[in-house]
């Protein structure tokens, strides 16, 4: 098990004066305004804020799904704006695992095939990919249901498949967008505990986007966003204790 104290080291993800401006016809709408943030390796960061505060935009930028209008984002010290689309896709696939609010599983594929998919993009051998997918599904407690399609699984199970898929390529960062947003409170709690376990036991860097303040208690660092700007960054004293 990695020690959590390691996250006090180098920033794995750095946002430097990042702006994101959307064009709505002739009008420019800034979603993020000069955001600067360092996320240390091994940290569990919750990015909170009300609706329209820029959380989703920030997630897209931190997940390298989009590039900033101004400013720089460094993922493992590499400026993502300088990477080609293909290089960025590969880099993203190896470094970041995504957990979406609506799970975003491919409906025509079984749980096993969904977990296998990122490994196919990473060009794992068939044997290694199958072994890894089974291993991860066992970790999230779905070893028995790996051949079920998403429609045959409950919301909580689908989210666990989504977490398994995010872990498949063994990325350093798990980026979770409202991971329990579509789940009931009991299932949501289990998902949060799973993420927490991944942070504590696997040493993953977890970045969680949420509007629920009570979920932020699982995180070590809490970033509060308002109107596209960071209002406050503070550590969760409870979790430090």
């Amino acid at each position, binding site marked *: 098990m990695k020690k959590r104290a390691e996250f006090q080291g180098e920033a794995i993800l750095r946002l430097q004066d990042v702006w994101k401006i959307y064009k709505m016809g002739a009008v420019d709408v800034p979603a993020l305004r000069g955001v600067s943030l360092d996320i240390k390796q091994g940290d569990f960061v919750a990015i909170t804020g009300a609706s329209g505060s820029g959380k989703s935009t920030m997630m897209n930028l931190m997940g390298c799904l989009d590039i900033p209008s101004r400013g720089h984002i460094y993922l493992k010290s590499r400026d993502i704006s300088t990477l080609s689309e293909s290089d960025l896709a590969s880099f993203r696939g190896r470094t970041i695992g*995504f957990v979406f609010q609506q799970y975003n599983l491919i409906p025509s594929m079984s749980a096993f095939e969904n977990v296998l*998919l990122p490994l196919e993009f990473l060009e794992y051998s068939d044997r290694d990919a199958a072994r890894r997918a089974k291993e991860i599904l066992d970790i999230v407690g779905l070893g028995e249901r790996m051949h079920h399609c998403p429609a045959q699984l409950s919301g909580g199970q689908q989210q666990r498949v989504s977490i398994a898929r995010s872990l498949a390529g063994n990325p350093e960062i798990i980026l979770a967008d409202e991971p329990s947003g579509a789940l009931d409170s009991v299932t949501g709690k289990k998902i949060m505990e799973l993420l927490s376990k991944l942070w504590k036991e696997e040493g993953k860097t977890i970045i969680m986007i949420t509007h629920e303040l009570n979920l932020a208690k699982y995180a070590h660092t809490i970033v509060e966003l308002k109107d596209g700007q960071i209002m406050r960054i503070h550590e969760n004293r409870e979790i430090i204790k």
Partner: protein
Amino acid sequence: MKITKSFKHAFNMVRHSKLRSWLTIIGIVIGVAAVIAIVSLGEGMQEAVNSRMSGLGGDIVTITPGASHGGEMFAMRGGGDRGSGASQAAGNTATLTRTDVQVLRGMPDIAMIDTNIRGTVNVSYLGKSGKVSMTGVDQRVWSQITTSKIKAGRMLDPADQNVVVIGGRLASSYFSQPLGINKMFSIEGKAFRVVGVLDDQSTSIDMPIAMASQVIPDKSTDVYDTIVVKVKDQNQLNDTIINIQAKLMTARHVSEKNMDFSITSNKQMQETMAQTIGSMSAFLAAIAAVSLIVGAIGIANTMFTSVLEKTKEIGIMKAIGARNRDILMIFLIKAALIGLIGGILGVILGAVLSGSMASLIGNMPIARGGGIAIVSLNSVLMALFVSSGAGIIAGIVPAYQASKLKPVDALRYE
């Protein structure tokens, strides 16, 4: 992503949108089937013509009176010595005479010359009568110049007088009873003995020319309907034809403008027919190819719909590490698969269709006596290549569009 994995995902996409995929595939099936049917029929007809014409003798040249008529080549029957007499029937007053034969005899590149007259005669045997065509031939050379084969009896001999060689059908079923070897029957009221039966299905009669000129009405001696020439060197055929033409033009005091005879060779006819059938097949195949284009547009349409339908999945794939070229390959392979499946089914349907069409037109003179539809390996490979190619071309733009989707936009798509 490895190509095998791209193939697997493309195949699954085709499998999961069965109805739409099948409807698109049907479009390609129709196009390919039409092309295959027409091409194989064309190839078969070409083959049939070639095999029939190759038996006609490549060293035979036929001279007929009158300017050349396009339809003459189709009037040819089994033998190379059976050039058309249609020129005179068309009202041309020019004739071929002994003088022309004398001119030809003086040419070193000619091996032998057969002179023919032709007409329709009344025949009767055991109470049954009818009208058949008859050819008077020079019996001294006929057996060496003709390409007809004898089935029973013998060919005509130089010493023959009141004897004939008859066609297979005239011998077997034309009269109420078979007309066999050494049987006597009546031609224009005169009795003749059958000495040979040809191995064909004709009702023709061949007899010595001297006797024929007495039997066929309105025929005079030393005026011929055709002169059939066997050249010494088949490789020099074209030169020999030019020489014959030059000599005859001089002897008959005509120029190229008012030339009153025509020269045809089986080889030339074979080439002309092959060319005609080839052009006809190409023209029909081009028309059929239009339906293939329509099928390809169907693939493009399906692919655009598929990209729209799969936008969110493309976003997910990109988020978890798919590169642009991975997405491009999956969609291109899907388009190619639709084209290929359509191509394979089209080839099968085309083969069945061409077989049916072949039997439908099997009674055409040109098609008689052979399986006339040939689905060659070349046309099959070409069809599969073209259908997959059409799929890929039709899929390029949608696949490129899919590969260029921004993950953030694709993920937001509902």
